[in-house]
């Protein structure tokens, strides 16, 4: 019997290490924000208030993947009229394309740590590869829920006209800086 358990453990152990743990994005502690140049004078910042997603992460087996879905209508720049303009056909066209998605296709490890995630960002129905630099990761047990939780901080840049968001160019900046702060709980 002992031998059977030992053999079973030896078989299962490597399989477990190959399977990354699944996490669900905590929308209450996830912030997708952006910054863009405004007429050359200043930087306008905003965020999205509704997002969801999932990720697979396992440090030991060096596996990581992430999917994030952002509700385009939830854009918030702290100014209602500007937000209405941003979801209009001039920019995000949120009625026709209500969801912005990022689906990772590859993860880059520097031997020890995850340094970047490359994936397809879809805006206005146009998918383009984008690389997000991972600035920090922390995984551990949540002090209150006792669940396993991971937090990521990633940044990247896109050219909005690559996605067909051309309105206001070049007066309103072409390059959009993205910052994603994400917290996810293990399923």
């Amino acid at each position, binding site marked *: 019997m002992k031998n059977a358990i030992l053999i079973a453990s030896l078989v299962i152990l490597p399989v477990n290490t190959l399977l990354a743990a699944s996490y669900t994005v905590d929308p209450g502690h996830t912030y997708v924000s952006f910054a863009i140049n405004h007429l050359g004078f200043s930087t306008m910042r905003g965020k999205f208030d509704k997002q969801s997603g999932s990720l697979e992460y396992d440090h030991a087996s060096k596996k990581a993947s992430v999917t994030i879905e952002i509700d385009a209508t939830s854009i918030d720049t702290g100014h209602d*009229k500007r937000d*209405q303009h941003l979801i209009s056909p*001039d920019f995000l066209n949120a009625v026709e394309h209500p969801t912005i998605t990022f689906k990772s296709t590859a993860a880059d490890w520097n031997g020890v740590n995850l340094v970047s995630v490359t994936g397809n960002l879809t805006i206005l129905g146009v998918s383009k590869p984008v690389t997000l630099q991972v600035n920090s990761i922390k995984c551990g047990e949540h002090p209150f829920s006792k669940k396993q939780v991971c937090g990521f901080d990633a940044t990247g840049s896109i050219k909005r006209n690559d996605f067909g968001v051309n309105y206001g160019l070049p007066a309103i900046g072409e390059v959009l800086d993205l910052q994603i702060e994400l917290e996810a709980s293990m399923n």
Partner: protein
Amino acid sequence: MEQLLDRPEFQSAVIPFFLAMLLYSGLKKITASAWIWALFAAFLVSASLINGFTVTPLTGTRKIILLVLASLILAGLAPYLIQQVKMQRAAAPILTLLALLWVFGKVVARMEITAIVLFLAGGVGLVLWLLWTFDRIAHDDSRFHGAGFSLLLGTGLSATAAASALLGQLALSLAAASGGVLLAWVLRGKATGPGRVSASIGTLPYVLSAALIGLAAVIFARLPWYALIPLAAIPLATSLVPVKSDARFFNALFNSLPGLIIALAVSVWVWQAESSNSSGY
């Protein structure tokens, strides 16, 4: 020069106005469809400056640009392609309804059944009404272009106030082009309206552009749907003006006046309603 081309007032007012006026003046002796080709060139240039010369991704707005250009080509070729008035009268609403489905079908399909019924009833009603009212004035240049100019001006200003400068600029560029044609006609033109033969198809550029941009501003931005009702009354109001002067200037002025008053009143109303929703932007 490049900086000027980036400015909205040049993209959707100055350039289409002067381009349409010059082209109409140059083409009017060659073809009775001079106004159509003048509008086509002006809108093509304006839309390229406003939107960039691209059709991808093929959003509703870009579909509208393509459809307006297609309607102008069709209106220009209709006298040669479809010579029977009955055929034109049947083709115009069918083509317009197909255009509505192409632009809004995907979005409307996601709506609740009540919203779908309201859209179909309202959208189809608007299109048929505009076709009928424009058809009634198609033989009269000053009324026809005066109504087209006023309707697109009102649609453009209202769409801009309702948070879509892109849709607004597209309508305003057509209004400016139409204004350029009207002014050229007043100054030294000759009768060049679409005429009886091409009446139905000839009205498509104004009907299709106003209906599509107006409905897009309601569905994709936040123009109140009831703002389209007074705007839709513009061609009818233009047809009711009793003035028929020998002087083209007075004809154009008096025939455009009711439509202009309605267009500006609706625009101011939408602007004020939007301004009261939030602080300045």
